[in-house]
């Protein structure tokens, strides 16, 4: 091997040694050298990770708030609680909600729903149970309930049936009433 070649090899070895040192300094600064691998990811990334962790913590906190119901009789965990999404709230048609509440906001309509809870009925069967109101008043109430989708009328047989939303709305109204009653007692 010529002298030039030897010189060249020596230079290359030195360069490799320098590069190794530089690499070690990048991955492991002298102040942090110890066990494990330290990678300086820079402050923007650290901020981002912190933000993510903050978001996760807030999410967990919010989920706990939604899942634990504190009522007059103590607190309980709502197993089926679904997360309340802002976009759902934004798209709510409050007129429709008010219309539904208005349909429920009548004693005779609630009693009509109560009668239908046990199965489909003809107008005359409902009239027997709600004898204090006239047939035309009953028909008017049934129209309101049908328009809001709480009941449906068969076109062939003519019976009135409570729908799935109607049953849910009726049960909800009863539950809230019982809940308020319990709250007032305590």
């Amino acid at each position: 091997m010529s002298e030039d070649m030897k010189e060249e090899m020596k230079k290359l070895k030195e360069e490799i040694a320098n590069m190794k040192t530089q690499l070690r300094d990048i991955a492991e600064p002298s102040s942090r050298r110890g066990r494990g691998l330290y990678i300086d990811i820079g402050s923007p990334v650290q901020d981002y990770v912190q933000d993510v962790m903050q978001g996760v913590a807030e999410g967990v906190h919010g989920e706990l708030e939604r899942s634990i119901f504190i009522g007059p009789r103590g607190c309980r965990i709502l197993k089926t609680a679904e997360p309340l999404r802002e976009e759902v709230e934004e798209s709510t048609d409050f007129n429709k909600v008010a219309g539904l509440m208005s349909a429920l906001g009548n004693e005779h309509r609630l009693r009509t729903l109560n009668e239908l809870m046990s199965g489909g009925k003809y107008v005359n069967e409902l009239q027997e149970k709600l004898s204090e109101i006239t047939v035309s008043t009953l028909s008017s109430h049934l129209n309101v309930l049908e328009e809001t989708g709480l009941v449906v009328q068969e076109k062939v047989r003519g019976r009135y049936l409570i729908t799935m939303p109607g049953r849910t709305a009726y049960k909800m109204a009863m539950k809230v009433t019982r809940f308020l009653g319990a709250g007032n007692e305590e």
Partner: protein
Amino acid sequence: MIWRSYQLGDSVLKTSDSLVLLKTERGLVEIGKDGLAVAVKLDGKVRGYVLQGDCKLALDTIVETREGAIGKPIEKEVKKPFLALGTSEELQRSLGTASVDDLKRMGYENSQQFLTEAKELLNHFSRRRMGYFNCSHDSEGSIFAFPNDAGRVDILLADGPKLVYKAVGMIFIADGNKTVLKSPERVIVSDLGKCLTIRA
């Protein structure tokens, strides 16, 4: 392949009275007075008619479950010619010959125009349904084919408490208290309030 033998009659008839073509627990088909009709024959015997007039179709395509009723009833007027196989002899008795005025009232210049439309419907029904259906006067059952806006036909089969209705986006099957409703969103199977829902 029974359907291959279905033939249309030669003469255009008209209904002299309003008639109920089908009345079951869940289904009703009516046609008004002065509706047009042409016989549909199989082996030389009249098996039904292609009809056009003031037709009313009502179906209770509702499933009753313990959680409440699901589905909506269907109520619509059918203006286009429709096929009715296995209809009552009462209809046959009430039919008379249609005049040019009767045809014009329905928007036809002559009887051939109506017969062409009727043939098109029968061909469409036969082509789409192939040999699945065989309806004879020995059976109480009826088959209806109503043209829909999608250029297809809605099929209604009825035999006592049994009813099948297939339209665009839905299939409804009922046998007494047992019902099946298939919509694009779900399939609901119900038997006396007990219910199984399969979501799409």
